[in-house]
């Protein structure tokens, strides 16, 4: 279901009408159950991110960053509160709709790259296009692989690529279908500083050249510095925005 900013927050809507935010969360809560113990991961997160914005979410381990990212990506549902991504209210969507939404609107980049080990770089990237059902788009493929500097590595399997190269392939896979939102979970967590710089520069470049909205989770202040805005979290809450 598509909902506008006007419906969720009428008083703030006027300023949002010019460009609808890509993300709107309102009092978002998430409680995990570990055995009989309830563990609150998010305790009322309210956040707005504009289209084309590059936002870094920082905070200590266990503060709820990854949970927030998973909810924004439609991988899990909040326990309470509302979340709208590109106008889609997750509360009203069925599992199949969430899957379609993830396929069409979201690109994920993970700390551990998460490439399929049996496929070459080219096949890993093309897989996203196959799942999206759009067919192979050679122009987009060429543009993205050139932008990420992996044209010469497309026939290599992940085990034959360096960490930085694997992460660039993972980014290419994430953006090949032109998602509205790129969610990066510690994308430099497994990389040395040189490769981290390369990957962050590329995320920045994608954001600037393709107007790609990016939400990046990181522990690293240097990485966070690449973003337009830094959101700090602690104990499941946003402490500075």
């Amino acid at each position, binding site marked *: 279901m598509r909902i506008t900013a006007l419906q969720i927050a009428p008083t703030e809507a006027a300023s949002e009408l010019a460009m609808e935010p890509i993300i709107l969360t309102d009092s978002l809560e998430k409680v995990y159950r570990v055995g009989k113990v309830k563990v609150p991961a998010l305790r009322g997160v309210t956040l707005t991110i504009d289209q084309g914005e590059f936002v870094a979410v920082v905070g200590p381990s266990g503060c709820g960053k990854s949970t927030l990212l998973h909810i924004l990506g439609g991988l899990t549902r909040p326990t309470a509160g509302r979340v709208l991504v590109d106008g889609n209210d997750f509360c009203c969507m069925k599992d199949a709709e969430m899957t379609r*939404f993830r396929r069409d609107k979201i690109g994920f980049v993970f700390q551990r790259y998460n490439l399929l080990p049996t496929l070459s770089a080219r096949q890993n990237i093309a897989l996203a296009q196959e799942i999206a059902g759009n067919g192979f788009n050679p122009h987009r493929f060429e543009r993205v692989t050139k932008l990420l500097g992996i044209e010469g590595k497309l026939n290599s399997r992940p085990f034959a690529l360096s960490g930085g190269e694997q992460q660039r392939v993972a980014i290419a896979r994430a953006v090949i279908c032109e998602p509205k939102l790129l969610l990066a979970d510690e994308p430099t967590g497994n990389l040395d500083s040189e490769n981290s710089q390369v990957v962050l520069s590329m995320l920045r470049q994608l954001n600037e050249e393709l107007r790609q909205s990016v939400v990046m989770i990181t522990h690293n202040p240097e990485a966070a510095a690449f973003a337009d805005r830094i959101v700090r979290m602690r104990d499941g809450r946003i402490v500075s925005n």
Partner: protein
Amino acid sequence: MILQNIWHRPIRTVVCVLAVGIEVGMVMLVVGLTHGMLHDSATRVEGVGADIMVQPPNSSYFLGLTSAPMPVAIANRLQQLPHVRAVTPVLFQFESAHGLSLIWGIDMKTWNQVTGGFVYREGGPFQGPYDVLVDDWYARAEKIKVGDPVNLLNHVFKVSGIVMHGKGGRLFIPLTTADNLAEQEDRASAFFIKCTDPGYTQAVIQSAETLLPKYTVRSVQEYMSMMTSNDIPAMTDFNAVLIAVAVIIGFLIIFLSMYTTVTERTREVGILKSLGASKGYIMEVVLKEAWLLSALGVVTGYLIAWLGRKVMVTVFPTLTVELTVQWALIAGVLALAGALLGALYPALRAARLDPIEALAYE
């Protein structure tokens, strides 16, 4: 991706393909053997050249399993019926010392009248009461030559001749000797009747039934049509049980393989889910992989059946294995259906995995 997965796990692939191949090969060989042996047996009865068979009341299809033998004198009464050219009595005896062989006790004179006589590859007719004729397939299988001694029914027989296969049994001894060894006198298990013209077959059957009420009188063509595994209840059950066992083994192998594969690839399933793969897409990937594995297995099974048949008829020349397109298709469909069924639960399990838990799987 499916091809890459299959290629990436060569041992798993080989084991699955072989298991399904053995399943398919086993079904084809078992069915081919039962059909082949029955058909071969029926064809050899047809090869006698008679038009009608007469057996005692309540006789079995299996010639060696007849009830109490009939007096040979009945042959004379049958001979008197209109349109009967010749009648020959045969006494069947099972020999189990060298595998299970059916020995035909024959009266050479009337046998020649009904059948037109043997075609001798080597040697000639019986010279004494303890002479035996063997067909060329049996001779090849047992490496027997004319003059060799052969131990049958606890007696030593001498091979007097090797005859061309396809006419009744594979081992022939004189009827009187067969009677003596069975401690009977002038008895026969069956009579083969040759009509003056095959067109009189039904008329002669009616006359014989009138003459011998309660006896089993049937045309050789009818006997041929009854000698299929579908018409023999025990054989149908035997085939069904073996086929079921083969299919269950194939099912379990694919189930175990795909279950292990899905567990091993939990993280990959999580990646697919993060890319927006639907439950249907993930199920399709698992089922297609199982289908491809079993399709390779089916082809391997055809090869195993073909090679198995070659080996069997080389080592045991008296065996007949009939590999038919019909049973190749049935075995293939059973294997594919069993494999898809075996992969169904692992596919459902993969589709239902929680994406976050799957991505965190080590």
